[in-house]
């Protein structure tokens, strides 16, 4: 038996979908399941909570205790649902006190514990409010307090910030990060927002089509994406090719890179590193290719140019450059990337 925390192999077989995800979370660690819609993240979370039964081969152990045969109501698990699901007929205080009451605390005891938790999330003044009187951010904090009130050893958060507007989100995100840091059990959160995942989690597990495609620290995943989905999330151009020392062959193109990679390799570079020219630049810059402009869209303060050609790529240029170079869809341009701006790593 190895220490505490969560060790799980989540197997859920459905007619048109199979989830098979291995997960290990140490006590005090926050792991984010990141993935596109329909990847199976929420199913994984529901399986951990006991709301979805595991298929043969699946198992869950928490602090050394097998959980997969334990019904949801007896698992030491707290869950924050995507739209919080606060009981509409109970006050904020009674929502938080609900768990302790179900687990045998007296009414007074449960309310005392609930009041202390509401205080901790800064909502002592709203204890008597009904859920419909709370703002989205307040409801989210009540939901967190309610999940923590059962003193879980595993905390599950399903898209905890998705229902909030952009402004509230920023504030709640940093508060949530603080509360998660205080929590000494294992935490698994599900999100499709890379920013939420990067800010809140110690480790990312990227799930696509029911399987783990990449995992690592947020920095690691952001620097070395391994799938198109992750590359898009972290905003990098990503190609798979064959490494040969300081060069990686991607299709017909040969990329010069700083890192030395042999065999199957990835090359990644940010869209801002791509320079565009109307005509072939003088000299012989490396990593040069001819591309056709497929589309142009605003991207923050810059303009993102979608390039078609031997490789598909994004290039970020200034609005001034768009005007100067007359970058309109259909036009052919030359694109280049400096070797120092690329990043190569084994596939």
């Amino acid at each position, binding site marked *: 038996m190895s220490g505490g925390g969560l060790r799980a192999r989540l197997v859920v077989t459905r007619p048109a979908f199979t989830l098979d995800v291995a997960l290990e979370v140490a006590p005090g660690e926050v792991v984010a399941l990141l993935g596109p819609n329909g990847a199976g993240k929420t199913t994984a979370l529901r399986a951990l*909570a*006991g*709301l979805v039964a595991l298929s043969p081969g699946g198992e869950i152990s928490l602090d050394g205790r097998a959980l997969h045969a334990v*019904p*949801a*109501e*007896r*698992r030491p*698990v*707290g*869950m924050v*649902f995507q739209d919080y*699901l606060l*009981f*509409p*007929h109970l006050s904020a205080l009674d929502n938080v006190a*609900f*768990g302790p009451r*179900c*687990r045998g605390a007296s009414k007074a005891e449960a309310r005392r514990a609930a009041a202390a938790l509401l205080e901790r999330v800064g909502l002592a003044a709203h204890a008597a409010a009904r859920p419909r009187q709370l703002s989205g951010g307040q409801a989210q904090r009540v939901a967190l307090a*309610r*999940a923590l*009130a*059962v003193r879980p050893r595993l905390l599950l958060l399903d898209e905890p910030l998705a229902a909030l507007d952009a402004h509230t989100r920023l504030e709640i995100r940093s508060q949530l990060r603080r509360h998660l840091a205080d929590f000494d059990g294992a935490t698994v959160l599900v999100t499709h927002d890379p920013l939420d995942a990067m800010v809140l989690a110690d480790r990312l597990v990227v799930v696509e089509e029911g399987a783990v495609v990449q995992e690592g620290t947020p920095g690691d995943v952001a620097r070395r994406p391994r799938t198109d989905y992750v590359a898009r999330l972290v905003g990098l151009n990503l190609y798979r090719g064959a490494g040969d020392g300081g060069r990686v062959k991607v299709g017909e193109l040969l990329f010069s890179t700083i890192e030395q990679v042999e065999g199957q390799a990835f090359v990644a570079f940010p869209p801002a590193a791509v320079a565009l020219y109307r005509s072939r630049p003088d000299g012989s810059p490396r990593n040069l290719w001819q591309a056709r402009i497929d*589309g*142009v*869209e*605003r991207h923050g303060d810059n*303009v993102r140019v979608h390039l078609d050609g031997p490789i598909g790529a994004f290039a970020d240029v200034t609005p001034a450059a768009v005007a100067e170079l007359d970058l*309109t*869809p259909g036009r052919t341009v030359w694109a280049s990337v400096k070797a120092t701006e690329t990043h190569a790593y084994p596939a």
Partner: protein
Amino acid sequence: MDAPLTPAPGRSGAGKSGGRGRAARERGVSGRAPLALLVPAVLGLAFLVLPLAGLLVRAPWPTLLRRLAEPYVLEALRLSLVCATLATAVCLVLGVPLAWLLARVAFPGRRVVRALVTVPLVLPPVVGGVALLLVLGRRGLLGQWLESAFGVTLPFTTAGVVVAEAFVAMPFLVISVEGALRGADRRYEEAAATLGASRWTVFRRVTLPLIAPGVAAGAVLCWARALGEFGATITFAGNFPGTTRTMPLAVYLALETEPEAAIVLSLVLLAVSVAILAGLRDRWVSAS
């Protein structure tokens, strides 16, 4: 050419104004109601309202108060109210769990059970009364045993009235509550389970409060049906003043001997029903 550079707000703004235009057009076409619908609608309304108006027109207003105060009227009214309320209570105690079973537990033959539950809705009440006699009568399958084991006889007693009314009215409650259960968001029940609530606690502290409007609506329908019950009551419980003669039975009896009294009794029944329904109609319409 520079279309992709158009900021998104411009597009969504156009979409919004399109929505407004559509709404305006919809208001535009809903001009005059076609006669083919209007005429039958008005006739239907008259058909429903005229008999009630007749009751009011022919009521013996000058003697109304004196007639109302007659002991047999008050006795029948009290009996009706008590029996309808008890029958509703019986339906709540048995019908809410039955509705829960139909809505939440998948078991073989659930469709058949659901159909059986609604049989009293389409069964002529007199037939229901006969059936009750065959089962709960003195010689009935269960009645025999009830009498020998507990000395309880139901037919021709006030308890029999409650049984007859509950039998006829229960489907209204079950259907209403089952609908509310199906409409309720089950994820609240899941949230309660993750907080450690057993299924009974979930039902008591989460499900029931969430479907309270549906239960109330069902109880009102059930009560109204029980209050008006005639056929099953007279067949199973008979027509004894003070013990089983409820308002509808009193109306029927009075019609043969003293039509004016029948009108007065009917008015009382009408007033009680309308008062209850008017008070709760909005609530159950919005709940269902």
